[in-house]
């Protein structure tokens, strides 16, 4: 008997009391979604900004290595998406479109289509996500309802920049992944 059969038959040999799978109510906490989303992103050390605020920041910083997969900011790209993710090593900025955001925790949903390369939002030094302000959901329940049938090889709820508190519980932004997250609400 191989291990698969061994494990499954060990489980099946037990007489376990049946337990029904509970239904999940559609919990929702009404309120101003933009306000709550903005607060959530700021709590997880990201920043929500307007289009003009973003443009001001971007032009002042003078980046030279920029990939933009966002249709709204395609003219800002200085590089096209490479084939090999290892070529992202010195990338300064990635600009991506997010599908939707969740107000209760700032999580933004991204799939292979938006990412181009799965390594992109992690390997880049600064991450910018462009999000339609109409595309905000209240809680994770509405979020998963939205993607219930979606089928992407990879999907990501991203809520902030890379962070750690592993040294004496001091919060440090920019552990291994992106050092900053800016969400441009349009």
């Amino acid at each position, binding site marked *: 008997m*191989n*291990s698969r059969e*061994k*494990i*499954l038959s*060990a*489980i099946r040999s037990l007489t*376990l009391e*049946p*337990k*029904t*799978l*509970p239904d*999940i*109510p559609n*919990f929702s*906490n009404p309120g101003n979604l933009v306000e709550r989303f903005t607060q*959530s992103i700021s*709590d*997880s050390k990201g920043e929500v900004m307007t289009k003009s605020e973003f443009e001001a920041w971007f032009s002042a910083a003078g980046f030279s290595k920029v990939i933009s997969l966002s249709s709204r900011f395609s003219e800002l790209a200085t590089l096209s998406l490479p084939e090999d*993710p290892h070529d992202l*090593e010195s990338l300064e900025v990635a600009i991506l479109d997010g599908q939707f955001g969740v107000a*209760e*925790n*700032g999580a933004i949903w991204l799939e292979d289509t938006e990412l181009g*390369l*799965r*390594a992109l939002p*992690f*390997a880049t030094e600064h991450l910018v996500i462009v999000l339609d302000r109409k595309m905000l959901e209240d*809680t*994770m*329940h509405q*979020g*998963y*309802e939205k*993607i*219930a049938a979606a089928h*992407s*090889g*990879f*999907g*990501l*709820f*991203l*809520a902030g*920049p*890379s*962070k750690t*508190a*592993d*040294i*004496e*519980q*001091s919060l*440090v932004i920019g*552990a*291994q*992944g*992106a050092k900053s997250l800016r969400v441009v609400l349009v």
Partner: protein
Amino acid sequence: MTHPENAAEFLKDAQKSKWHDETLWFVRDKRDKVSKGIPEWEQLRELASGIKDNVLANLASYLEEFERNATKNGIIVHWAADSEEHNRLVLEILQKQNCTAVVKSKSILTEECHLNPYLEKQGIEVVDTDLGERIVQFLNQPPSHIVLPAIHLKKSEISELFHEKLHTEKGNEDPVYLTQAARVHLREKFFGAKVAITGVNFGIAETGEFVVCTNEGNADMGVHLADVHIACMGIEKILPRRKDLAVFLRLLARSATGQPITNYNSHFRSPSPAKEIHIILVDNGRTAQLARDKFRSSLKCIRCGACMNTCPIYRRSGGFSYNSTVPGPIGSILSPGLDLKKHSSLPFASTLCGSCTDVCPVKINIHEQLYEWRQEVTKTQDDFAKGLSMKLANGIFKSPLAYKISGSLMRNALKSLPNSLIYHPLNVWGKNRNLPDPPKESFQQWYQKNRL
């Protein structure tokens, strides 16, 4: 070494153990604050508990459903009955790739299987990429906490360690500076690795996908740059439906660190073109625990660590005192199932105050199971000193006269007996505890005088 012996060691550094206690309590407090912001918090715990109960009652069919869907998506599914088989499977995949250096993100399961020493013996370099885990790996230590692996260390120790290993400035203890040094070091490893290993937070039967949560983004840095991703998953990590993730992701980070969600929550459904995803489904004692009626529900654990942060014993004894991969209250009910003899002191490392049960996001009755394990332990080992005193007490409580006489004898004896006799080594309860002053009279005498 027993838990009390190890705890005594930890408490020698009074300042550090105080910091440890206060810091974990601060995390517990953050959990309280953030959970209060969710009106349906208690309902979510109830739901999570109910979903996990259903999973455990139907585990075999969910595992088959998961395997079927994952395979359909192009994920290669393996099964491992125990840690040896798990380690061998990982090694075989690495050898097939001619891989001699691997990056690994946080996985309690691979700690449980002692994967690192096994691979290192085969000449493979393993780099733990979670910052806290990299720190303890440099020190040849296991993590002392499942969410905060290096919580037992002060920044001065990490500064010294990084000076030695990463050539940082001597004496520079700035966490930002030290984290930046680790970032440079780890990114070099990420960009050089062909294979990346991760744990799994949740596996979804309905879709065959699995979810990995981190704040540092280290799991994703590893797997998206590597050609091959090996995910190691305990068989109890299954959830039936994709929408169940909403419940669990709302609970996990809030319970763990008091943040509303981890910054990266990655859903792996199929590999990128020309890449491979392997998932290893591991038993290693889980089906045995499933067979134990009283302890089955310990398998509902989602490894948030909330029970550790709240536990008055864990906070004051440190993770290493448990000498178990998963320390703290949950570890003390999981580990005896793996090796009762080795872990026999763990069910006693608790005041049974029940705080662990109160904060558990999946409502495991941890303190009741600790009590149950105590019964199992005492069945197998007879404590001579306690046995004798219990027999003596039994005789005294049977006879009202004996009770009256012994009560008055004890009140006088406690006043006059030398401390060496009262705090005798056989009386472990006398360690670091002082008896209150004995009362002048018995309750009966007091009642006779004071009754209306």
